[in-house]
């Protein structure tokens, strides 16, 4: 097969929030940039974010970045790197104000400033009282943000390759990244995108679980590509289960509902979060709320005929508040739960939502790997930002609204780093290896000719069921062990998937088969990393970790205050230290403490 080659200064894979923010930086600096995206940019999953983006603007309540930093480090259960966290919270006001200047339709306070609402885990004065830090456009913040970023890119004349699916990362013998291969979905043709810099902004992989708030497209494409190309994946055992997915449907109900005063209730109508988090109650961190809900359900206090969910109650809020601040939620409840939240509470259940781990990066957006004893050596020409990356600002548990902040701050940072590396002459177009597209062509050829294989949807379902059962909200040592065996079996099956559709044109069967290759890498990384981490921390909680003075909440800082690195080749693990030292002398390290809300 003939493979076309295109050459750019930079190629960005993904056009969600992080990709678009990075693209803006590159386009405005005049770099010849290609943005590859498998869906039209405004269909990327950033569009589904609801509640807001964090920034300590202090428009409604007193606030500052020190408090935001403390909340983020504590939320991460101290697994977040404090240099990257300091960088992110300090940049928050700047990137949010920029968005406003781009035209983002934020809600407003009476004096015309950006409207802010309380959110889980965000507090004033180091955990004392809830703070209004979430900058919101009703409950459609992600939609408003993604469209504003796309619109700004239209203004900047960014060059998009829409409905092109990136397939494989191209590296040379030194490990430098030289671009990607990609398939045009309309024709099925594979091309090489040869570039001086490659930025991955491919989003999350929440579709490894059976029940997920994530879109169909969230198949971990960048994460899978990186893993297959020899890049380790960091902290993949940490997955956020959002407390409030619509029971049965999985569709997200924003934490902003609780920010506006919503209350979680069990079968007897009790506001049970008062027992688990006496201070922040329903606005405790997501991992804490999700575990509390599952505990209520497991102990027989769940709601409905199956006692398998709890209720999110906003019937005490005025219809005016609901219609003004939560109109999208009202519509989702009516559509997917058959309930008008003005009149009745919404049935909810913890649902897979966000990947805290990912491709390891530093706060400049450079992808970093261990080399010659140094755990964080940049890979030449390779950058990543957003959910596919692990900076690591979320550590073991992300705070709500910090994801939209992450993609703005690190999308911009990755863009700035590329621009400055480009302008200083550090980035050069290195020669492509012979047959740089061979791996991709072989994957397509296999799907052409495979017979007697299983269908993609069957293998995908087996993977999703395995992840759901063996690596959920609560984890059990024996289940994890069995889960590793099972997921490796599923991975074998995925090598022999078969498709009946052989058309060149818009072949979604083929796309789904290629996506499964990526999902499988993520699923393996998750299960293997989770089985190995013998402690409870943030979203990773296991039955054999003991809560005592030495290991508070089961967290074992002596042995496990370290990042996991999983390598696809050889299915092996490595570890690297957590950065406990902030970036500057402006702030002291946030000292380790038992996490309570």
């Amino acid at each position, binding site marked *: 097969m003939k493979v076309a080659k295109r050459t750019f200064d930079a190629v960005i894979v993904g056009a969600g929030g992080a990709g678009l923010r990075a693209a803006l930086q590159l386009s405005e600096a005049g770099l010849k940039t290609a943005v590859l995206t498998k*869906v*039209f940019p*405004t*269909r*990327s*999953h950033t*569009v*589904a974010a609801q509640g807001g983006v964090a920034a300590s*603007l202090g428009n409604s309540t007193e606030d500052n970045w020190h408090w935001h930093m403390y909340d983020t480090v504590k939320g991460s259960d101290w697994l977040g790197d404090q240099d990257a966290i300091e960088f992110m919270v300090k940049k928050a006001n700047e990137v949010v*104000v*920029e968005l*406003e*200047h*781009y*035209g983002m*339709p*934020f*809600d*407003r*306070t009476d004096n*015309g*400033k*950006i409207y802010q609402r309380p959110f889980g885990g965000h507090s004033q004065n180091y955990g004392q009282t809830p703070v209004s830090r979430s900058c919101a*456009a009703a409950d*459609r913040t992600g*939609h*408003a943000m993604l*469209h*504003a970023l796309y*619109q*700004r890119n*239209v*203004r900047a004349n960014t060059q998009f390759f829409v409905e092109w699916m990136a397939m494989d990362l191209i590296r040379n013998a030194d490990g430098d990244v030289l671009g990607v291969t990609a398939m045009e979905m*309309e024709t099925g043709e594979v091309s090489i995108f040869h570039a001086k810099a490659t930025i991955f902004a491919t989003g999350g992989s929440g579709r490894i679980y059976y029940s997920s708030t994530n*879109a*169909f*497209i969230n198949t971990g494409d960048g994460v899978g590509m990186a893993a297959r190309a020899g890049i380790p994946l960091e902290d993949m055992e940490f997955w956020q289960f959002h407390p409030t997915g619509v029971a*049965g*449907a999985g*569709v*997200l109900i924003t934490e902003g509902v609780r920010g506006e005063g919503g209350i979680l209730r069990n079968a007897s109508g009790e506001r049970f979060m008062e027992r688990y988090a006496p201070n922040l109650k329903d606005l405790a961190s997501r991992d804490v709320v999700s575990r509390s809900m599952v505990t209520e359900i497991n102990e027989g206090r769940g709601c409905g005929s199956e006692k398998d969910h709890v209720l999110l109650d906003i019937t005490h809020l005025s219809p005016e508040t609901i219609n003004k601040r939560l109109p*999208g939620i009202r*519509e*989702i409840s009516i*559509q*997917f739960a058959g309930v008008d939240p003005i009149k009745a509470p919404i049935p909810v259940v913890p649902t897979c939502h966000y990947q805290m781990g990912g491709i390891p990066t530093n706060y400049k957006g450079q992808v970093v790997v261990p080399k010659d004893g140094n755990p964080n050596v940049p890979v030449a020409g390779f950058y990543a930002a957003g959910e596919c990356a692990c900076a690591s600002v979320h550590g073991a548990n992300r705070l709500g609204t910090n994801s939209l902040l992450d993609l703005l701050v690190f999308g911009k940072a990755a863009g700035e780093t590329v621009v400055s590396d480009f302008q200083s002459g550090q980035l050069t177009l290195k020669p492509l290896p012979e047959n740089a597209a061979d791996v991709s062509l072989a994957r397509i050829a296999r799907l052409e000719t495979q017979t007697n294989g299983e*269908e*993609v*949807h069957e293998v995908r379902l087996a993977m999703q069921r395995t992840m759901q059962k063996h690596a959920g909200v609560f984890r059990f040592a024996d289940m994890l062990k069995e889960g590793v065996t099972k997921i490796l079996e599923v991975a074998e099956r995925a090598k022999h998937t078969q*498709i*009946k*559709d052989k*058309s*060149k*044109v*818009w*072949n*979604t*069967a083929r796309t*789904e088969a290629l996506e499964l290759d990526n999902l499988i890498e993520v699923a393996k990384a998750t299960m293997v990393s989770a089985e190995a981490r013998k402690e409870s921390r943030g979203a990773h909680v296991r039955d054999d970790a003991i809560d005592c003075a030495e290991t508070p909440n089961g967290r074992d800082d002596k042995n496990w205050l370290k990042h996991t690195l999983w390598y696809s080749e050889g299915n092996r693990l490595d570890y690297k230290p957590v950065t406990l030292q902030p970036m500057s002398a402006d702030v002291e390290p946030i000292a380790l403490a038992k996490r309570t809300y």
Partner: protein
Amino acid sequence: MSSKRTVQFKIYRYDPDKDAAPYMQDISVELEESDKKLLDALVRLKAKDDSLSFRRSCREGVCGSDAMNINGKNGLACLTSMDDIAQPITLRPLPGLPVIRDVIVDMTQFFKQYHSIKPYLINNEPAPERERLQSPEDRDELNGLYECILCACCSTSCPSFWWNPDKFVGPAGLLAAYRFLADTRDQATSERLDNLEDPYRLFRCHSIMNCVDVCPKHLNPTKAIGKIKDMMVRRAV
């Protein structure tokens, strides 16, 4: 909700790689109890016949991918309930745009019109250090405008757009045009009106209101278009 049930479909099929011409396929599928929306049924159908091609992503009506013509009316598969839909469920691609394959259409012309109205805020004053101020009342003017998901249900239900897709901006593009005209932070009002002052771009809207009827987000492009026309008249006198 009833348990397992079989539903009948009539689906527009066309694969340029193998079909000489498009055809309507009769096909049925057994649904599980959890299959509540048309998109769930299509995913179930695709498991049976993996060559059925359609776009989909968020499955909650906010990404705008799965617009199609459902029993003669444009809509999103993910927001169409299986409870109140007549069988056989007839699915066709959005009308008026070139078909790539099955219900997947080429949306180039649609986006070209969207891009033609300069869909971005224009304000040439130096950016202040903090946010530009906007009163809650002024911000409320953007409600019903900014929520558009670019699914193209409206423009592809509009006869004026069918006849002149290259000349008439269409309801989605005009809704976006008014979204910026209505924004107190935008300074390009007269430039934006100039851009639409033409026998086709704006004035081909004859208030047929199909756009309002089909919008899955309950937006009202006709009303926005009326407001642009008012602005044109006001600046002429």
